[in-house]
């Protein structure tokens, strides 16, 4: 408990540090949304006037404290581009990103863990080699390339699935595959190597020796121990669930958070970028802490060392 509180306090400072650094970087970048968006026919005076309207003429630290005091009151501010509340922009995008990343994560785990287990049990067999080769191929495929490939095959040549945008669950399939296939390989390989390691442990031998049936040994002793890192990995994925994927969302014109973040960075829409990064930083800290706690619960050795 004490440990958890310590972690959370450190976490708050980490989040604060992230926002300070981000604020510094964003404002150090040349230009601002007003200059970036305004066409050529805006005079320097009008630009100054608009900047003052948004408080951009104030010193940076004052702008930061304004922002911080608003965040504490739960107000994420207003987008300088759309002139809409940031929270509204995030609310519009979040469901799509959660749907995409959430289902990708589920698909990834459902496929990767059994395959990883299988490969480890059949270590050095034909099946193992096929699974490992496949995972290397998947792992080395860039997202944008895989996305375009799937689009050409299933969208254009076979004309089975919608190419882009969100138009019901059918349109989820291609971005889902593009997102989950490459990252599936990582989880698969992690599961495989962990299971292999555990299989070589003495207590597994003991379990076999005392005559436990194979499935019991596998589930109770092998998987339970091997899946600790895989479970912790899961929690590290949580911030990404919210952040989305810029590349996949752009290729498939998916109306998610990744694109919102990317677009906002390119036009330096401060309020939006800061809000999203703040949420991601907060989630990273929280999910890391949860991950630690979970691994402690699953593994008595870690718990004791806390």
């Amino acid at each position, binding site marked *: 408990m004490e440990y958890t509180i310590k972690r959370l306090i450190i976490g708050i400072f980490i989040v604060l540090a992230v926002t300070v650094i981000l604020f510094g970087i964003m404002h150090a970048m*040349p*230009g601002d949304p*007003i*200059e*970036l*968006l*305004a*066409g*050529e*026919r*805006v*005079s*320097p005076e*009008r630009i100054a006037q*608009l900047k003052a309207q948004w408080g951009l003429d104030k010193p940076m630290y004052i702008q930061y404290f304004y922002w911080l005091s608003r965040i504490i009151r739960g107000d994420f501010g207003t987008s300088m*581009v*759309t*002139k*809409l*509340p940031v929270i509204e*922009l995030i609310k*519009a*995008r*979040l*469901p*799509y990103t*959660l*749907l995409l990343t*959430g*289902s990708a*994560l*589920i698909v990834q785990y459902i496929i990767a863990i059994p395959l990883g287990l299988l490969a480890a049990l059949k270590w050095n067999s034909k099946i193992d080699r096929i699974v490992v080769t496949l995972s290397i191929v998947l792992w080395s495929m860039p997202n944008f390339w895989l996305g*375009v490939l799937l*689009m*050409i095959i299933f*969208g*254009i040549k076979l*004309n089975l699935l*919608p*190419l*882009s*945008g*969100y138009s*019901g669950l059918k349109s989820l399939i291609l971005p889902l595959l593009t997102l989950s296939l490459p990252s599936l390989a990582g989880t698969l390989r992690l599961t495989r190597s962990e299971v292999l390691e555990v299989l070589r442990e003495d207590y597994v031998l003991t379990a076999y020796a005392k005559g436990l049936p194979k499935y019991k040994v596998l589930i109770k002793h092998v998987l339970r121990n091997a899946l600790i890192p895989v479970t912790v990995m*899961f929690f590290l994925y949580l911030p990404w*669930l919210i952040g989305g994927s810029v590349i996949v969302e*752009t*290729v*498939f*014109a998916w*109306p*998610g958070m990744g*694109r*919102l973040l990317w*677009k906002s960075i390119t036009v330096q829409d401060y309020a939006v970028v800061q809000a999203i990064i703040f949420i991601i930083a907060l989630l990273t800290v929280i999910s890391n802490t949860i991950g630690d706690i*979970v691994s402690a*619960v*699953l593994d*008595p050795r870690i718990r004791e060392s806390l």
Partner: protein
Amino acid sequence: MRRVKLMEKKIGSLILFFILAGAVVAAGCIGGGGTQTSTQSSASSTSSQTQKEVTLVIATPEEIEGTDIQQVSWANIVHDLIFQSLVVYTLDLKGVVPNLAESFEVSKDGTEITFKLPKDAKFSNGDPLTAEDIKKSVERYRNVSPYSEDFAVVDKIIVKDSQTAIFKLKEPAGYLWAVLASVYGAPVNVNLANKIGNEAFNRKAVGSGPYKVEEWVQGSQITLIRNPDYKTHIPFVKNKGPFKFDKIIVRFIPDDFTRVSELKAGNVQIVFGIPLEQVATLKKDPNVQLLSYLQPGIDYIMINTKKPPLDDVNIRKAIALAINRKELASALQNLVRPAYGYLSLAQVGYDEATEKELQTEYSYNLEKAKQLLAAAGWKDTDGDGIVDKNGKPLKLTLMVPLDRPVIKKAAPIIQSQLKKLGINLELREYEYSYIRKMTREGNFDMAMRAYWWNDADILIYIFHSDAGYPWSNPKVDKMLEEARTIPDFTERAKKYGEIQKAIANEMPVIPLFSEYQYVGVRKEVKGVIMGIDGSIYLNDAEIS
């Protein structure tokens, strides 16, 4: 051990809960929107059971900033469909014709423009549109738009009666047409905006255009439904009433490949922002026709006239003469049109004679360029191919915008062309807005830039001393101010001809070219009309 097990189970179910809750929330939120639209479409299909609903799908690379034309920095096809300007330019930009206004009249001295509105003019939500609304729109524009200075010349607007609005100008202003004839200056329903607030109005703005906003799914698309009350007075369209599509969906597809694929697959009928590398393949596609228009403006090199050695006009002219624009155009697959003057064909104020004159004077001529350099004291004394003066070689940097693909491609070609003149040109890539900032601060040698606006008045924002760039000339200042006030199109073009020659004489900016832009249209869509500056009219368009 037992407690641990319990915890384990709890955490297991917690994880499951998180995923499920997330998925349910996600599906719930999206599903909510989905059912809403499906009920709406079923409702509208029952009302017109006999006729099938016709939907046109358009794709653009950029999402709109908002739907309210007065609050955005950039207009998009969406705004063209929601709003309706009082007048429009003819397709060749040689004159102005009525659109929303039934007719208009300019007083002899050019300081009074009278617009006559049709009797039954309405906003697309059914509110009446009167002269009072025109006045309120202009007043709101001056408050909220980043381009609020557009109407600075308007002294006051007199509402003579509900159908007559008189614009009283401080001085005659030919350039005012550019705003009045563009969607930026179109009337918006100010009463509604005041009632619901700017924020809500930006989500669902109301104008008098052919369509009204049904649903804007941020990051994805906007669905527009036909305004049955729409009426226009544009003489060059046949259909003066409502458009032929019940619905228009404008999708925002940022990726070039995806956008073009959707066009090829036939899921989208009109695509804006065709990337240059796709132009050749799409020209061969039997199902697609490409409409092209010219950039209403030019891409150019701005020179820091305050920084030696570029403060010497001979060097600037030598550089202008050493750039082979024809070679440049063919290297860019002729997707650009060489420019010698400071205006393009797709701008009001362009003067053919001036362009020809400047072309003969500043066409590629390496010999003359070398002579000018030599006259300025720059010669290649050490035989390394680079000219030098007092032992110092001529080395200059060129700022290149990395976010403007065509300009970026042109930069290395210009670098090699100037090498032949003996100038060592170093290319440095930056974001366009950073380049604009650095040029305003005078912190550069040479910088590649561009402008887009269909009226010659844009020159005042680059060459007038108030614009804040290194070069200015009191004579040119005065000429630019004068040119604004000329109401007659031909007279004004002549004046801008003189201005261009005066600027070229000091060569603070070297014109390079105007870019051709492409719009992809499926062959089954007929009747799309496009002006030379890219303004698009779908009044007569239909799907066969």
